[in-house]
């Protein structure tokens, strides 16, 4: 039984048709899985391995290498605060505390309702808006903790 949506499976199979090898589709497949299932656990690994004809160990080994792929489910939304040097110099440490206050959880934690995961990430290339924050895949620019909260509440 498929644990991924038909759409995701179709996207993986379409990518497979033009890819030079089955494994070269793996990163794309893992990204889609993370997006849909919010983690790449045992079930997800087994599913992708059989879909692409790879061993479980190969899929799991690759998945564990990349930071955006997680073994435990993340929240519905991810608030990512950059901990790079530019953000560190421009108020990053204080921003950790402010986000902790408005989100109610600390770095590495997910809110009890499963809505938000607060992460610290390495330099995300938004250094001119330090301290830089991302909401899911969106750069929030020069956002305050209150702005982040407002974005989340907007849904």
């Amino acid at each position: 039984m498929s644990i991924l949506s038909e759409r995701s499976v179709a996207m993986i199979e379409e990518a497979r048709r033009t890819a030079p090898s089955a494994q070269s589709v793996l990163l794309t497949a893992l990204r889609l899985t993370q997006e849909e299932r919010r983690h790449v656990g045992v079930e997800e690994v087994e599913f992708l391995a059989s879909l692409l004809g790879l061993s479980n160990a190969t899929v799991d080994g690759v998945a564990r290498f990349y930071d955006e792929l997680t073994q435990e489910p993340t929240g519905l939304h991810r608030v990512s605060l950059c901990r790079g040097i530019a953000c560190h110099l421009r108020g990053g440490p204080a921003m950790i505390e402010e986000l902790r206050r408005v989100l109610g959880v600390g770095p590495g934690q997910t809110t009890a309702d499963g809505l938000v995961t607060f992460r610290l990430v390495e330099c995300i290339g938004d250094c001119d808006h330090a301290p830089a924050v991302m909401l899911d895949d969106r750069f929030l620019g020069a956002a305050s903790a209150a702005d982040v909260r407002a974005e989340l509440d907007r849904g």
Partner: protein
Amino acid sequence: MERILTQHTGYDDQRGLAAARARGAYEGLRKALTMSPQEVIEETTSSGLRGRGGAGFPTGRKWAFIHPAADQQVYLLCNADESEPGTFKDRYLMEHDPHLLIEGLCIGAYAIGAHTAYIYLRGEYASVGAVVEAALAEARAAGILGPTLLDSSYQVEIKIQLGAGAYICGEETGLIQSLEGRRAYPRVRPPFPAVHGFMQQPTVVNNVETLANLPWIILHGGDAFARIGTERSSGTKLISVCGAVNRPGVYEVEMGYPLREFLANEAGGILEGRALKALIPGGTSVPILTAEETSGLTLDFESLQGAGTMLGSGGMIVFDETTSMPDALASIAHFYAHESCGECTPCREGTGWFAWIIDRLLAGEGRSNDLALLLRIGRNIEGHTICGLGDAAVQPVRSFITKFGAEFEALLPKTPDTRPDWQRHGHGPRTARHESPVEEAARSEAVSGPPTARL
């Protein structure tokens, strides 16, 4: 100054194909297609263009290494993994003028005989990928990309691959590994990618900014490009400046532009009128300069190399007089400890020790030989790893400690430590028994959620 890369980035509609073409997009490609691939390579070689990703290798020479056998397929990979701390210039180019990159990719692909090109974008740039993907779709629909490149008989297809969060994917063989769906463990060279690259085929990896220079070079000629900038650094450079300046952002400057002038003019001076304390000119992987050392320097490969550092990626990080250097170094050291891929022991272990020791110094738990120990660990990493990440991690540690020694010495214990070596060094960062206070705090806090987060 003639702008080569940011000529059109200020227009709101530049992402659209019609507007971009009205401003001359794809004219360089049109001209390239009237030349032979060999002529395109020669034009690029005579321009003196050097790679803009950090290493500064001559682009034309890199291309000339490609000699495919009859049954081989050549690949051009665009390195858009931009993860060097303090660097955000490629993102700026792709977001504001995606067709410039696509045109550059087509010219490069034509020159080396590639029919498939990949843009490897870091996972955090998914929104940038959407901009480039939309531009690709427009170019395909208009018949620019695809089976008949701009009405020629040459075929080029460009695909985007998003990464998933790993700094090492910016290393060219790490990038290739990742594109093949593997852990991004860098490969031993030789064989070089030009011989055994993506899928064991001849491969060139070029940075975004490097490729974006090609349309101009082909349109105006290599000689015209070589007349811009300095003798050994031709053309312009995108500098992304951040940290303690009034106007952080991306600026295009002619190679050879005075660094101090750049700080005062483009960057808008130091934040709140403070004094400059130090500056990293090309991403955290290059040695830091003290304020005194920056005087008289110019922004080009040779001037910065002469000062013992590098132009690198052009990611300039500025530190003002209020910065604690040990505190800043801790942030940088944690980056490398987190991003070391773990393939080579000296880097995997050494970067962890760097972060752990600097943390314990900051926590007031330093040991009297800690600074010597940091330098020794650096010597044990440098030159002993497959890729450059290990060497890169050493540069900030060594240059911060040697140039701002007093601040680090102030953290050492006041009474001499007479214990034997093994007791003075501690048990290392991977031993749970002796976690640093910072690590301990991170661990106790990370009750749930991804194991990647750390303080």
